[in-house]
Each structure stands twice: as structure tokens, then as C-alpha cells.
């Protein structure tokens, strides 16, 4: 059908349609504008936050870890800066090829590769992962020249932990290691996880673990503007990190080294305490190990070797080695006899070489087959008569014995500022019932009297008990940490000595025991060889702890026993006897007799401490590459002049806080 349309009409229709189109356009523009109002006013806060999130990244600035010094500011643990090569997987070309090419420039061991693979599996793609730590200067220079060939590979300066004095200090200072899943969980629970952003190491053992919260410091935050690729464009604000506290110990590095050296090839432990404040002067567990191996992840073969070694180097014998205290318990038993009124100084027995319970034929033998004859209390200590103590223990009874001994720290943790300490054992009938569902036999009391049977103690416990004797009943908590410095205020705070026990003891009784212990070191005593020629009064007591039981009627013949089945040699001492400055407990594994093996070790350590005398085999301390912060040294103390650091008000608060 033909549509005849008048042009004017047609034009009017066109106008109308144009107007409709115009109105539709206007309506759509209004709709668009309302969308803008919605986005830019109603939803502004949300999109503003999203844009800021896009833009701003918070980068952690890890703090530098506190340095650990001995009492003379010799560095035991410190940090140094070294170059590492790190690969950012997302930016790098093929990883294996990159690593192969890198290995042509710097040496990359299979261990490095393994560690890289392991960390790669655990990390995010955009994080940089170290392939090689501690580049030599030559290697760093070689990489710098070839850098263009390796996209995604960067050389970074990182801080490394180092333990310059190595093995002898491993059990005290401990080490740090990579934060593992367990650490991560613990940090999460404690709410400390945020402070560990950017930190990948944490204290695992020793002081490094115990004082982690002080050593670590506070992580700083850098607020940076990043582009969509995550590259930092500029820094917006920065909260600098606060370095961890520097720790200053009671420990004397030289004393520790000497003590470790004088053990020779023997395994064992030595604890030296300052009886005037509980400060730990030396804490040796031999053999030690190199803590530096652990810092960046120890390789499996080395770890196996350490862990499977018969010598058990990883065990801190001073705190975790429990041994029958043997005859070293006798001075305490004697004191108990006096204090409980069971024995008088003048009372003596006739020792025929054995003790039998009334109505029993079983013989508890003295170490001397034919006995010592007439023995009073003093002589029983000097010659270490067993028979005397069999009878005394029987008369005393196990309950009274345990009660008295517990005040000296037997069966109780010393509460030293290291983790993992064992509490040993001071048995009671209730304990036996609980543990074995059996009743107590009187014979068990008899052997407990000479520190055998169920009685177990750590070298640390022996040292604490000896400190109680030396101090006339005052027991301090053994303490490694002497002071700490907060680098942000540069203020030095001191850990106050803490008395854990004041045992009420009759001075006359104490005098008698101390005299007896002094006589142990003199001709006629069991440690007379070790005590020969001391210019100071040396008080000590030997002990021997059985490793294997000896059958009734059999005799222990040293030469017939295999080395590892030989008895442990024990020795406790303090000196000078009239004004004790050092208390020592020594345990030598399979050392045989306390008098011949353990006592000379204590003698050499005491000689150095009181006289500054170096043993012949001693090699001087090498402070290592760390600069010793001379400014921190208050005075160069003579070995025997121990600064009694007491600033109780300032010092106790943080300590208590930690102990909660």
C-alpha cells in the first residue's frame, strides 16, 4: 500500500519521534546520574576503603634481636648482616633453570636447593625465598655483574644470628630456628603473631627460647603505597622497629670454657653458682654441639648424627640429666640427723663393713669391705662411710628424710631461667604407692640414705642444695640473667636475686658439716688429692652413682666393667668454706670415683674463679667477630669480685610478669 504523506505531516512526526528519543535519552541520563549518586555518595565509604586497600600495603620491619653477653660483656649471641640471594618465584623465569644458572656464579649446595624447595612449598608465590645465605664478597660482586641475567633474583642484606663461642654454650644460650607450625600456633594463642610478621626465626632452646619475648623486640610497620603489581611506589609512614633487649648474664664465658675444657674427653655436667645471689656462673653439659648449625635449619644427616649419638649431645645434662646423688647426699643426711636430734656430733658407730635391718640377714654393704671401724658424724662425711648412713636413714625414716631434703631442693625444680628442667625424685611411700601401687620397704629407706635407690637429682639440684649449705640455709633461685638493657630507653635493669627458701638450721650443726666437708679435701678425706695445696678453704663431698645394679654378694670391680657401665662420678663443693663465693656440682658420666675424676674438675674451676689461675689445657677466649660493646662494660670485674646486682624495685616486676 502506498502511503501518501504530506511532507509537513511527515516532518511533524519526525519531530515527535525526535522528542521521544530525546526524552528517553534524558531519562537514561538521569538513571545514570542516580547510579553515580549511589556509588559516589551512598557507597563512598565502602569504595574509598576498597581503593585504600588496593593502594596501601603494610610492610613489617623486623626488629633486630637482642644481643646476649656474659658477665664481662663477651658476646655469646649476636647478629651480623650478610648478603643473601633470594628468588621471587612469581617474577623469575623457570626456577630450576634459574638456580642452575646461578650455581655457575655462586656455589649452591644440594642442601641449599633442598631448603629452597622446602620453603617454596610453604610460601606464597610473591614472597622472596633465599637460595643462598651469606655470600662471600667475591660472590656478591660476581652476582652484581651478572644481575641482568636473573630477573626475579635479588641480593638482600639479611641479619643472621651467630653464636661466636659455639659448642660449650649451646645448652645455656640455646639457638634460634625457623618458626615452625607449632611456634606459629603458640604465637597465635598468645596473641603475639602480629609482632612476628616479617620475622622467620624464633628462640628454640636455652635463653634464646626463655627470653624470646625480650630478645625479639617490636616489629615496625612501614605503610607503603603499592601499585597493582604489588611494587612499593612510595613510603607513606613508618613506625620503626624497636630492637630486642640485650641480655647480660651472670655466666662467665671464660669460666664456662675452662669448665668445659677440664672435662677432657668425659661426658658430664657442671653447675657453678654464686651462693650470694644464685647467679649461674657456669652451666656445662658435655658434649655440647654447635648451635650455629640450627639457625638456618640443620640438615638431616647432621641432625641424625647429633640425635642418634650415644653421647647424647643434645641433652642438657645439667638440668635434664637425673642421677642418683650417691654419697653427695651424706652432708645433708648428716645435717638432718643433727637437726632432727637423731644424732649428736659425738655419737659414733662401729662400722664392720655392712648394715642389717633388725631381724634381717640382708647386708647393706659399705664401699669398704671391712668397714671403717669407729665412725662419728664428721668422719662419716670425710671418709664417706655408708654404714653410718644406712643406720641413720633407717632411724630417721623416709618421710622425715624427704621432708628435710625437699627444703634443700631435692625432688623440686630449681626454677632456673631455662626451660625443660627435670625435678629429679625424692621418694616417699605415697609416691611409691601412686607410682607402683606398692608399699614402701624399710630397705628402700636404707639405700636412700646413701643417695641410691629411688633418689634422683640433677646436677643443678645438687648445686642448689650445696648453695643452701654454703649459705647457712638461704637458698637463692638460680638465675642466668643478671641484667637487661632496653635499647629504646637505653636503661639497664637488674634482675634481683630471689630467695626461695630460708631453712632454719642450728649454726653449730652447720659448722660441723662444713668442717667435715673441708676435711674431705684434706689428707685422709676422699678428695684429698683434688684438695691438695689450696690457699683457700675448700669444702666438698664426693659421690659415686651406680649405673648398673650390683648383685647381692657381688663386688664392683672397676676394671671389669665396660666403660659405659662404669659409675658416674659426682662431686659437690663450695669455696672459700668460711665465705663461699662459688658453689659447684660436677657429674662425670662413667667417671668412676668422684674423688679422682669429678673433684679435680671442680678444683680447677674454683682455682680459676678465686685465684684467676688458668689450667694448663686452657686456650684463651676468642670473642669472635662481634664487636664487644665496650660502652656496656661497667667495670672489668676481677673474676672473684662479683657485682651483687640488686635493684629490687626496678628489676622484679618484669621477671614476675614473665613467670606468670
Amino acid at each position, binding site marked *: 500500500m502506498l502511503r501518501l*504523506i504530506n511532507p509537513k505531516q511527515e516532518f511533524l512526526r519526525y519531530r515527535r519521534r525526535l522528542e521521544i528519543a530525546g526524552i528517553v535519552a534524558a531519562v537514561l541520563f538521569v538513571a545514570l546520574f542516580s547510579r553515580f549518586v549511589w556509588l559516589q555518595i551512598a557507597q563512598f565509604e565502602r*569504595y574509598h576503603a576498597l581503593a585504600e586497600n588496593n593502594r596501601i600495603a603494610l610492610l613489617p620491619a623486623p626488629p633486630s634481636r637482642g644481643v646476649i653477653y656474659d658477665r664481662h660483656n663477651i658476646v655469646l649471641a649476636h647478629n651480623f648482616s650478610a648478603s643473601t640471594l633470594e628468588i621471587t618465584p612469581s617474577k623469575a623465569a623457570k626456577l630450576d633453570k634459574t638456580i642452575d644458572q646461578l650455581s655457575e656464579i655462586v656455589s649452591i649446595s644440594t642442601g641449599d636447593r633442598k631448603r629452597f624447595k622446602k620453603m617454596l612449598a610453604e610460601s606464597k608465590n610473591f614472597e622472596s625465598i633465599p637460595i643462598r645465605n651469606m655470600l662471600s664478597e667475591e660472590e656478591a660482586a660476581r652476582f652484581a655483574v651478572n644481575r641482568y641475567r636473573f630477573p626475579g633474583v635479588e641480593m638482600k642484606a639479611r641479619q643472621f644470628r651467630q653464636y661466636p663461642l659455639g659448642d660449650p654454650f649451646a645448652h645455656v644460650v640455646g639457638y634460634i630456628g625457623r618458626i615452625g607450625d607449632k611456634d606459629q600456633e603458640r604465637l597465635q594463642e598468645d596473641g603475639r603473631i602480629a609482632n612476628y610478621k616479617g620475622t622467620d626465626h624464633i628462640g628454640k632452646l636455652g635463653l634464646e627460647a626463655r627470653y624470646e619475648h625480650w630478645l625479639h623486640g617490636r616489629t615496625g610497620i612501614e605503610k607503603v603505597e*603499592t601499585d597493582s603489581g604489588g611494587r612499593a611506589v612510595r613510603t607513606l609512614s613508618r613506625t620503626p622497629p624497636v630492637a630486642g633487649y640485650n641480655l647480660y648474664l651472670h655466666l662467665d664465658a671464660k669460666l664456662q670454657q675452662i669448665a668445659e675444657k677440664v672435662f677432657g674427653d668425659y661426658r658430664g655436667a657442671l653447675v657453678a653458682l654464686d651462693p650470694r645471689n644464685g647467679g649461674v656462673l657456669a652451666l656445662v653439659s658435655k658434649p655440647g654441639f654447635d648451635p650455629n648449625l640450627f639457625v638456618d635449619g640443620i640438615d638431616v644427616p647432621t641432625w641424625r648424627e647429633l640425635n642418634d649419638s650415644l653421647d647424647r649431645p643434645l641433652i642438657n645434662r645439667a638440668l635434664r640429666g637425673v642421677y642418683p646423688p650417691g654419697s653427695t647426699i651424706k652432708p645433708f643426711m648428716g645435717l638432718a640427723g643433727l637437726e632432727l636430734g637423731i644424732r649428736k656430733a659425738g655419737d659414733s658407730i662401729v662400722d664392720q663393713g655392712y648394715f642389717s635391718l633388725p631381724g634381717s640377714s640382708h647386708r647393706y654393704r659399705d664401699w669398704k669391705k671391712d668397714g671403717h671401724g669407729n665412725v662419728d658424724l664428721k668422719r662419716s662425711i670425710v671418709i664417706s662411710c655408708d654404714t653410718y648412713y644406712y643406720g641413720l636413714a633407717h632411724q630417721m625414716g623416709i618421710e622425715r628424710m624427704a621432708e628435710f631434703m625437699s627444703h634443700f631442693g631435692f625432688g623440686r625444680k630449681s626454677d632456673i631461667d631455662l626451660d625443660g628442667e627435670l625435678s629429679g625424685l625424692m621418694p616417699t611411700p605415697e609416691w611409691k604407692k601412686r607410682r607402683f601401687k606398692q608399699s614402701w620397704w624399710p630397705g628402700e629407706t636404707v639405700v636412700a640414705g646413701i643417695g641410691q635407690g629411688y633418689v634422683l637429682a640433677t646436677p643443678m639440684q645438687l648445686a642448689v642444695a650445696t648453695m643452701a649449705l654454703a649459705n647457712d640455709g638461704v637458698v637463692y633461685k638460680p638465675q642466668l640473667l643478671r641484667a637487661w638493657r632496653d635499647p629504646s630507653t637505653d636503661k639497664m635493669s637488674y634482675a634481683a636475686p630471689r630467695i626461695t627458701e630460708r631453712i632454719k638450721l642450728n649454726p653449730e650443726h652447720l659448722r660441723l658439716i662444713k668442717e667435715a666437708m673441708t676435711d674431705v679435701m684434706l689428707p685422709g678425706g676422699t678428695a684429698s688429692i683434688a684438695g691438695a695445696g689450696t690457699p683457700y678453704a675448700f669444702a666438698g663431698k664426693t659421690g659415686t652413682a651406680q649405673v648398673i645394679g650390683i648383685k647381692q654378694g657381688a663386688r664392683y670391680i672397676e676394671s671389669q666393667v665396660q666403660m659405659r657401665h662404669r659409675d658416674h662420678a659426682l662431686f659437690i663443693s663450695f669455696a672459700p668454706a668460711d665465705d663461699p663465693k662459688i658453689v659447684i656440682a660436677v657429674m662425670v658420666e662413667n667417671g668412676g670415683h668422684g674423688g679422682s675424676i669429678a673433684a679435680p674438675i671442680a678444683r680447677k674451676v674454683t682455682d680459676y674463679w678465686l685465684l684467676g689461675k688458668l689450667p694448663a689445657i686452657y686456650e684463651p677466649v676468642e670473642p669472635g667477630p662481634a664487636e664487644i660493646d665496650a660502652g656496656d662494660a661497667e667495670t672489668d670485674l676481677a673474676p672473684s669480685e662479683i657485682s651483687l646486682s640488686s635493684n629490687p624495685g626496678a628489676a622484679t616486676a618484669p621477671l614476675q610478669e614473665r613467670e606468670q
Partner: protein
Amino acid sequence: MIILRWIKHVFCYLDGPMLGLISLLLLTSIAVVFSASGENSDRMVSHLTNIGVALGAMLLVSHIPPQRMMQFAPPAYVIGILLLLGVALFGVLVNGSRRWLELGFTRIQPSELMRLALPMMLAWFFHYKQETLRSRDFAYAGLLLAIPVAFIAKQPDLGTSLMITASGFYVLFLAGLSWKVMVGAAAAAGSALPIAWHYLLHDYQRQRVLTLIDPSTDPLGAGYHIIQSTIAVGSGGVAGKGWMMGTQTHLDFLPERSTDFIFAVFSEEFGLIGNLFLLLLYAAIIWRGLYLAASAPSLFGRLLSGAIVLTFFTYAFVNMGMVSGILPVVGVPLPLVSYGGTSMLTVLLGFGIVMSAATHKKLVKT
């Protein structure tokens, strides 16, 4: 004096108010592209060159009287169809679609030619038939529209085919397409939608629609564009972050920021106030354009001008709707603002035609 007269002669076919509005928009474009390109001087030189060339083309076209232009319409259309056929047969495959034709010395995208050739052809058709227009002529016109759209949709190029469909439809609409047909076609299209969804749309096209509905399903892939551009717009707030201060823009979060997503840059830096200004500027250009279209003496001029102006509106609306997250991401630039020579040229050529149609009053009767 002669120079003055010569200048007057050169500019006599341009519309003053329209030129002023366009210049204002082009100045805005220069400022935004400068910011979006990160002060890249190469890009600025090229942008200014594009604007200069396109303005020159507009000036040139404004001198061509509509009846001359009408003579170009059928050949341009036929050449366009042939080139599209060439693309379908010998086209270069880029990113999974065949849009370009390799000519040896250069590559051309024939669908761009169709943006003007199609409405011209349709306007020519209705002008030619104006005395004897039958209802079935709309069907013929529909066929003229469908052929190039089918070629372009097949490439596939959803955005361009939709835009060309729109421009052709505007001619039909202004020529008096009956409402019944429009409603019927809309209903048919609506019912065909599920079929089209399953059989005609390509995966990537479906993905675009799906990510529009919920961009968060694919925040790093297809949803990334929409999420980041919406953040840019929303975080601009009322007053904007200030010129050259847009964080989304300058920290590289916005994709395609000097081309299809340039509105996000503008919106982030100038805020709601800037958006209002831009909308009003577009509205003014459209208003003036429709006025010029209505004042064109010939039917050809009126239909073509009206379609060009309405297409211009469509581009602007679709682009801003896409960037602000209410329309799917189709590759449509913001007219006269986005960086890009072809779009700039096509749009300004269009305005040259609009001005020419309105200012050439003496029409030779056919």
C-alpha cells in the same frame, strides 16, 4: 579582509554552539587522557594529532552538501559489505575474532566504515522512497540493516554489531517505523533471548554478562575490570581525588584506562560534580544535535543527523553504564573522550555531516 572572508568561508558550514560544546568536551578529553596515560608525552602527541585530523575531517565534511553526500551512500554501503565479506573469508584472526582485513600496507576494520555507511544507506533509502513509502519498505530497510550486522556479529564483535544495529534502528524509528512492529520485534527478541544465549553467544560474551551480574565470581579474570572501575568511580566521592591524583588510575589498578575505561579515570579524579558536568555537556551536545537534525531541510539529512546524534548518545550511555557497572562490558569507547583515532574520526565525521545537513539550506529538488 580577504583572509577574514576566507576564514569565514571555511567555517561557514559549522554550527557555532555545537563547535563550542565539542571543543569543551575535547579539552576535557585532553586533560583526562593526560592523566590516564601517566603524562606519557608520546600518547599525548598522538591524541592531539588524532583530534586535529578528526577536526579537519569534520571541517571538510561540513562542506559537502547533503545531496552530494547522498550519492556516496549506496557505493559506500556496497563497498562496506564487500569488505565485510572479505573479512569473513580472508580476515586476520586476532584474539579469537576475525575483524581485520590485511591490505598489505595497512590493516583496516571494515565494521568501522559501516558505522556511518549503514545509517547513510538507510537514510538514502528512505529519502529515495519518501514519496512512495510502503510498509514493506521497512522490511527492505530491515534487510539492509541485517546484512552487515550479521557479518559483524559473526566476526564476532558483539559491541560493534549492537551499536550498528542501534544506529540503523534509529533511522527506521525516525522514518516512522510503526510502534506495533517495534513492540512485536521487542517481544520476538525477548523470546529469542534464551535461544541466543545458548546458541548464538560466544563463551566470552556469556561470561561478560555473567560477570556483570556478579563480578565477584571472577575477581581476577573478567570481573576484575568491573570491580576496579566501580571502585574507581565510587572512591571518587563528591569532589573527586583531584586531577592526576586518582590512585586507582595512577597505581595501575584500572585496565584500559585511556580507552574504554577512561570514564573511571574522570570519575575518580573529578567525582560526582565532574560526572554531573560531563552528563550535562553530553546532554547539551545531544540537545543541540537534535535541534540541528530537526532543522535539516532534506529527509536524508534529518534521518541521518538524528541517527548520528542518537548513536552518539548511545555510545556515551553504554560506556558510562558499563564503567559504573550497570551494563555489561562491551568494547565501546566514551565518544570524544577516549583515546583512539578511529572512534574520534568516526564521531567527528558524524558531527560534520550533522552540521552540513543543517547548514546547507539551499536544497536542489529532486
